[in-house]
């Protein structure tokens, strides 16, 4: 069992409430995003489609950011999520270079890295991560991936073409994709 996020792309409207709730929870200045929403267009006029993808740390079970951290700042918590100890961080940014998802964010004024901690403090208090509860379409969830898979059916994937090939990291993610999010002709768009 591993803990991770579930994203239902068939319900997502790309409103970025998750992104902004995350900034609010973590009090992040402009330029630093622990969660980010990207938009992609596929197909030709007039049959073009749009999809939105909300991503944060994947809390990989074989995380390169943990492996490559020289100080142990990036580490696994008891619940299996990838956590960061700010006190141990020396700002070397090995994790930034090692993560294919751009999850660790270097904050130059602090000379340390920070990233999504899956709102561990809120979860430890029995509630959902801020991004999950902010979603008006209820398309984000966080929990035991085996249970989430049971709950949301079999047609879930752990990667889509817009994402870097990273199966070796064993990202803790479940995605219910839009059918056209599996096409290869995507173009990222500002929306």
């Amino acid at each position, binding site marked *: 069992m591993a803990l991770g996020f579930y994203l239902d792309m068939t319900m997502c409207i790309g409103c970025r409430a998750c992104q902004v709730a995350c900034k609010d929870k973590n009090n992040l200045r402009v330029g630093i995003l622990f969660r980010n929403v990207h938009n992609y267009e596929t197909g030709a006029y007039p049959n073009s489609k749009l999809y939105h993808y909300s991503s944060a740390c994947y809390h990989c079970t074989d995380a390169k950011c943990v492996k490559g951290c020289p100080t142990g700042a990036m580490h696994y918590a008891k619940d299996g999520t990838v956590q960061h100890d700010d006190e141990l961080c020396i700002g070397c940014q090995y994790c930034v270079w090692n993560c294919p998802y751009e999850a660790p964010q270097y904050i130059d004024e602090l000379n340390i890295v920070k990233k999504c901690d899956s709102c561990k403090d809120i979860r430890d208090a029995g509630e959902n991560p801020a991004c999950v509860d902010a979603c008006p379409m209820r398309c984000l969830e966080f929990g035991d991936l085996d249970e989430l898979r049971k709950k949301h059916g079999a047609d879930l994937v752990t990667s889509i073409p817009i994402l870097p090939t990273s199966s070796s990291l064993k990202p803790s993610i479940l995605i219910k994709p839009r059918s056209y999010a599996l096409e290869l002709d995507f173009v990222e768009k*500002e929306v």
Partner: protein
Amino acid sequence: MKRKHWEPGGGNKELRGRDEWVRISWDEALDYIADGLKDAKENYGNNSILAPTFFAAASNFFHNLLSAYGGYTFLEDTGSFGSFWFAHLYGLPPKGYEGANDRMDLRKAETVVLYGGNPAWASTGNRTYNMMQVKKAGANFIYVGPEYNVSANLFDAKWIRVRPGTDTAFLLAVVYTMLKEDDPVSNPIIDWDFLNSYTVGFDAEHMPADAKLDENFKDYILGKYDGQPKTPEWASEICGTPVEDIVWYAREMRKDKKVSILHSYAPSRCNNAESFPQLLMAIAAMGGHFGKPGHSCGGMHDQQAGNCGPPLVYAGTNYDMPELPNPVDDIIYAPEVWDAILEGKYNRTATLTRDLNNEGMRDIDIRVIYHVCRDALAAVVGTNKGIEAHRKVDLVVAHTLSLNSVAQYADIVLPIATQWEIQYDQGYLRQTSREFQMFPSQITEPLYEVQTDQWIGEELAKRLGMDPKIPFPVSLEQRYYDFFAGAQVINEAGTDYENLVTVTEDDIVWWNQNVGKAEGKPQQGRIGLKQLKEVGFYQVPRSEDDNYGHISYEEFVKDPGGNPLSSKSGKFEIYCQSYADVINGMGRSKIKPYPAYARVLNGYEESFSDFDKRIKGDYPYQIFNVHYLRRADTAYDNIPWLKEAWTSPVFINTQDAIEKGVKDGDTVLVWNQYGKILRRASLTNRLMPGCINLPNGAWPEIEEDTGIDKAGGANTLCAPVATGIGVSGYNTNLVDFEKYKGDPLTPDHLWPLRVINYL
């Protein structure tokens, strides 16, 4: 604060918008304003004071204060609703608001038409989630509009593409097709029983008694009066919809299908769109899509999107102060207001909110512009002309939360407390949804020196020699209490309302000690006053079998004689004499009493210098403005996190952009005879060729030397001209564009904050 070079009488007026600021005390500011108002009243009359905002109730500060002081010139704006104003004359609810069924009934529909509209961006909260339950219940969605937007995409809607402002042509051809294909026996499309029983004016046999013109809708469609049958081939040339899609849409409207047509107001915020609402109604009537489960046709706008019906819970309403009558009857429509200031005259027509008198041209000499509640420079069409008008008058005052456009161009700026700094419901939080009501609380002490609109009004009243109790008979604190205590909730049977809040003597003491000074009486309700204050909202739970469902027009359809509509005949008037008389009396442009095609000012055909030969003109692209999630219309376009999240690009059809050498992210210049803007381009295949989508609400940042608006204010490009009702035609404007040759734009979230560095 005060503009450095302003002095009584105006000072150096040309420096408005580019002057420096001086910090002054509240007393100084209030004295300046009171003196300015006195000066205007005594020397030029009360109608020299203009308050260019609308909806008096949204901020009755200016309305009651200025009315008590002898009156002011009012700005009339069709605003969000466009040509749906006066819809009650042909039988729809006022402004076409409401009129569809509630969200539970919507799940019974087989076909849902989103006629324009994008609830995912324009009706935030859970509207889109609720509409997704309709999709999951099995309905097929159709989306009609020039851009396959986020909501259409979410619902996998079939895209019926129609150019901006050409909906009348499209729908006339839909009517033609329904008429041509209908056969009561072999192919029943039209509900003739419904037309004959519930409408007038469809054909020669069913004309209303007051008709002055010997013409009817059906014969117009068939081409009897102008020799032009309104065929799909005819319409397609104008609206750009493929002929097969027009035919498909017409068949989908058939009477034996459960069709719910939900319209936004985007197609009505167009020039010459006076026939559109009546035509949408006519087609719904032809299919019999009124007053039955699964069938409906009505508005999809803010809180009632996909969920029409009377409120199940609402806050106390007696906290609204009585509205004083305005002794001045000068009322100017928004697209004509800047010209009125600059030229000193305007056309006083029938109004939206006061009287139907057409008075013709009147002289007007505006000396004071008083902004409250609305950023009229960013929100009213013709921003550049608006700036010119601001630089003409003697005094411009702005009440504002932040340095928005009207504050930038004002002489005296008064900082107003936000919702979060006071114990009071300010306007829009009262409107949530039919089953949910917010009861907001103060969450922080007022920051710096902010004050409320009402405090300012009371202080000005004293300086103007009035008893503050005349304009403001109820204190803010009492209004806040009444907002809670007066709240009503539907009873379980769904038949009547009862008190929401239980109030005890102890509660009233507690309230006075902890919240504010207010009088109240004990009452019995469902939830304690303290508890409601703590929770901050009340929601009525819903289920498909509850007693709270709503089917619009149900009573009318059961008994049209006993439950007549608001029209003169009491039926849906497909021929409506009173509507034509009002519009034609205004003198801007003429309409028929039935829905008919009219060439659209700044519409598709006018993008050609010669439409017959298809030779493009100077401004060959149509531009329209959508609501954007970074801001709420013009409110709060200054939040760095939201600017980072929503970059506010200009959307251009991919092929159009490629032809001009424009790539994603390039800075483009978009211009017409009214202004120039810069934005970064986002190329999309979800937008019709020839169309440009510029999100609304940005705060103009106009460079003085080039005249270029770097922020891309939508109204920098919107023409300050009006047709028909006097509609603010945000969605019918023409432009050209090119890749910008100057320095590319920096992303908005990296721009300096709009804050003042005092001298």
